[in-house]
């Protein structure tokens, strides 16, 4: 008998509005839209301060995902008409497919700028673990990129891989972090490959051998952490160290990356997934201030 399949990989979509800002008082409303491979965010800023954001899953169609993310953010504001928007910048994997954007900027530049905003100007190294790529970025106190690397050829060690694993093991994605530490005795060694396809078959074998789900999660998280660190290492690590993207919410991987890095990661109240879109909105604000905004 077919049972309804639970979607363990599904993470919570959210939107938020800043109660302290009234959009009517703003000189410039700028919007950043980050269409990633797995998630899409829209951040609306009023003169460089976050007014509202929406964070949701990317669908099969980039223009629609961009529009939905914007709609989701505007829903949070409630009464602001869409044409109040002064400038809109698209970023991320699907940035050229944002039909209403005035221009697009690469996610490298946007993530550095966004991390500078959500973590503060002390950030020098930004690690972004997204749905399908890993970015390691060094930036200066203004959030300008000084050194970067993006591994977008292979999705090993990324968010999508974690989704596949949570589904395989039947562990809800937001519990993966804690569960991966709930093993008995010594921490199991990392799985030998982070390649999602190979790791999945290796994990199936381990389960067959009698490993618990927690042990398998620990082994996979460890392998991901090692892979992520090997990319960070190439760019180099400078304090302060900040993590953005969905994987920043996964303690199982991050608590295993940080001992390798040898630093503590910075903390923030913001949703780490909005960094790219926040950066894009800030670039929009910078352009508007320079008088390089939309021609009216």
């Amino acid at each position, binding site marked *: 008998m077919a049972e309804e399949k639970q979607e363990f990989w599904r993470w919570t979509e959210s939107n938020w509005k800043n109660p302290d800002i009234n959009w009517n008082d703003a000189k410039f409303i700028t919007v950043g839209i980050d269409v990633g491979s797995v998630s899409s965010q829209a951040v609306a800023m009023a003169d460089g301060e976050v007014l509202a954001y929406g964070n949701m899953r990317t669908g099969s169609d980039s223009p629609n995902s961009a529009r939905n993310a914007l709609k989701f953010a505007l829903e949070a504001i409630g009464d602001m008409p869409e044409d109040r928007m002064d400038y809109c910048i698209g970023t991320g994997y699907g940035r050229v497919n944002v039909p209403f954007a005035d221009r697009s*900027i690469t996610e490298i*530049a946007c993530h550095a700028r966004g991390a500078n905003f959500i973590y503060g100007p002390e950030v020098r190294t930004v690690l972004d673990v997204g749905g399908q790529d890993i970015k390691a970025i060094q930036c200066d106190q203004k959030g300008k*990129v000084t050194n*970067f690397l993006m591994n*977008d*050829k292979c999705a090993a060690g990324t968010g999508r891989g974690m989704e596949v694993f949570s589904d395989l093991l039947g562990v809800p994605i937001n519990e993966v972090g804690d569960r991966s530490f709930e093993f008995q005795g010594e921490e199991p060694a990392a799985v030998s490959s982070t390649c999602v396809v190979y790791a999945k078959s290796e994990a199936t074998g381990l389960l067959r051998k009698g490993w618990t789900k927690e042990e398998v999660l620990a082994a996979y998280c460890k392998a991901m952490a090692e892979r992520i660190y*090997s990319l960070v290492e*190439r760019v180099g690590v400078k304090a302060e160290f900040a993590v953005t993207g969905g994987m920043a919410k996964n303690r199982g991987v991050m608590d295993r990356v940080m001992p390798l890095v040898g630093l503590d990661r910075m903390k923030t109240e913001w949703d780490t997934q909005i960094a790219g879109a926040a950066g894009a909105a800030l*670039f929009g604000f*910078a352009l508007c201030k320079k008088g390089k905004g939309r021609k009216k």
Partner: protein
Amino acid sequence: MLANYGYKDASGDFFITIDTDKCDGCGDCVPACPAKIFEVLDEDPNDPLRDEPVAIVSGEKKKKLKYECNPCKPSSDRPALPCVSACGAGAISHSW
């Protein structure tokens, strides 16, 4: 800015680094590369507020560097790499 284009996979690290502080966007690397992996843009895509031309490794090529660069990298008697020699500013380097 050090722009690292390329990837890391199970067979190794394949990155071409362009130092955008040295690169003046002259474009000498573009015809020098037999695989045509470089292009010059009027604006640095990773530094949108700086309006200077700069060389980048173009889109799809950066995911195939191991293969695109292979003909210039014989296992013995390796001559100087054409892209590295062509760059007067010394802005280009390879990781492998």
